């Protein structure tokens, strides 16, 4: 059966009403994330890989590297390639076939958030300027969708990058040598970027929506933040947000991200 029917209207009214009194169905505060669990090393063939659970939402993220050619406008820098798949395995709502917009958006947003935060020092991934550089692939798969896969993917991407080890480089073939991995980590900034999405449901703003809350989302704003600096934003869904209210949204993101960072740090240990 359609175990994940979209949230019925009457339930939606209850959720909105409850949110207005500052409460959520699962007893969380409006700006509180669910428990985060990070399991490292889920594929020994990946340079770095993690399983991230945010409540019952779950994603797998793997980092792979190989040797490629740089783009002409960044001849001395490595390449970052991010993909995301919302697998039909993870929800009856996802269909098989070529990636649809929601999956493409997750990939795009995670790409921009890592790229713009300058988390990876791309210039250190150059092997021979203009000829050979490291490609860094971040591939994201949903395993169970219970809301907010986007932020879960963001956590997973950073965690997988943090634990990744660079493969050996075979001078003769000019290719990666996976049989001789180095013990070198990726060149990363010390401070990690965090992605956090603020959702507007009715008159309320909240983070880390459950699937039901996500169904009711009127608008959302995804922030990529590193060390208090915002480096990427996307406003999603077709409802406008008043410019004064947007200022509140920015405050909410800036404030909530501090708690979220602590939760991620704890889960990473």
């Amino acid at each position, binding site marked *: *059966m*359609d*175990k*994940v029917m979209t949230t019925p209207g009457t339930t939606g009214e209850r959720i909105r009403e409850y949110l207005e009194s500052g409460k959520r169905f699962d007893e969380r505060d409006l700006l509180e994330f669910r428990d985060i669990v990070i399991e490292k090393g*889920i*594929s*020994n*063939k*990946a*340079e770095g*890989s993690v399983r991230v659970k945010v409540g*019952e939402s*779950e994603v*797998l993220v*793997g*980092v*792979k590297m*190989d040797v490629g050619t740089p783009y002409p406008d960044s001849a001395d820098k490595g390449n970052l390639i991010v*993909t995301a*798949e919302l*697998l*039909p*395995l*993870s*929800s*009856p709502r996802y269909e*098989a076939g*070529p990636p649809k917009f929601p999956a493409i958006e997750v990939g795009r947003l995670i790409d921009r958030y890592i790229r713009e935060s300058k988390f990876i020092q791309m210039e250190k991934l150059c092997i021979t300027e203009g000829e050979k550089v490291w490609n860094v*692939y971040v*591939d994201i*798969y949903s*395993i*169970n*969708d*219970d809301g907010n896969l986007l932020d879960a993917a963001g956590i997973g991407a950073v965690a997988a990058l943090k634990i990744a080890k660079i493969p050996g480089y075979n001078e003769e073939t000019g290719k990666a040598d*996976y049989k001789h991995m180095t013990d070198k980590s990726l060149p990363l900034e010390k401070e990690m970027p965090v992605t956090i999405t603020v959702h507007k449901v009715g008159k309320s703003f909240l983070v880390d929506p459950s699937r039901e809350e996500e169904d009711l989302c009127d608008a959302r704003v995804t922030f990529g933040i590193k060390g208090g600096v915002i480096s990427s934003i996307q406003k999603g869904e077709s409802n406008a947000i008043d410019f004064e209210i947007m200022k509140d949204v920015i405050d909410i993101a800036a404030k909530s991200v501090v708690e979220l960072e602590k939760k991620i740090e704890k889960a990473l240990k």
Partner: protein
Amino acid sequence: MAKKTENFERPDGRKLNELRPIKARVGVIPNADGSAIYQSGDTIAIAAVYGPKKMHPQHQQDPAKGVLRCSYNMMTFSVSDRIKPGTSRRSTEISKITEWALEPVLMLDKFPGQVIDIFIHIIQADAGTRCAGINAASMALAHAGVPMKNLVCSVSVGKLDKTLVVDLTKEEEDFEEGEGPTDIPVSMTPDGKITHLQLDGKIGPEQLKEVLDIGKKAIEEIYEIQKKALKEAFN
């Protein structure tokens, strides 16, 4: 040949008829109607079942019986050389092989016009991924409450030079001495009905019959593990 068999040493020190350590669990995907994860050594497969449910698109409906639709895919980071996302010829073929392997135990006549979807993903690969996928899928189907005559279990039997071994690793698949490697993945019900058989390499008819006997024994072991996982999930 028997003597030669005894002297053969496997790279990981296993006995010739010894399976890799297996871990199996059902109920790993809350959204799915049934789900399972199956790990054999360093090969990990996860499977989810959705249905029986309405078949979309409608023109693919079979008014006489239900349709089983399998999709097998490897995650990009499941092997050393990253796989491009999306389906390939190989994954399309294995998806079909998996359908053929599982259909004989399903009572699809009970679901005319409907579909059962199985999604299999290989998280980490060290050979035998189609077998791990079939094992996970079979458990996920049972876990989903789909009516079945039996479970299906799958294993690859290998011939390395002249010696028969069960459950090949990637390293063994790449074996190059003597007659080289022959890979024979086989799927059966625990009572010995073969639902899937493939072979790549070279082997004589008599030895191939021996392969089936060896496969049958391994499958009985796998069945016990699948059975245990399903029983343990219930409390």
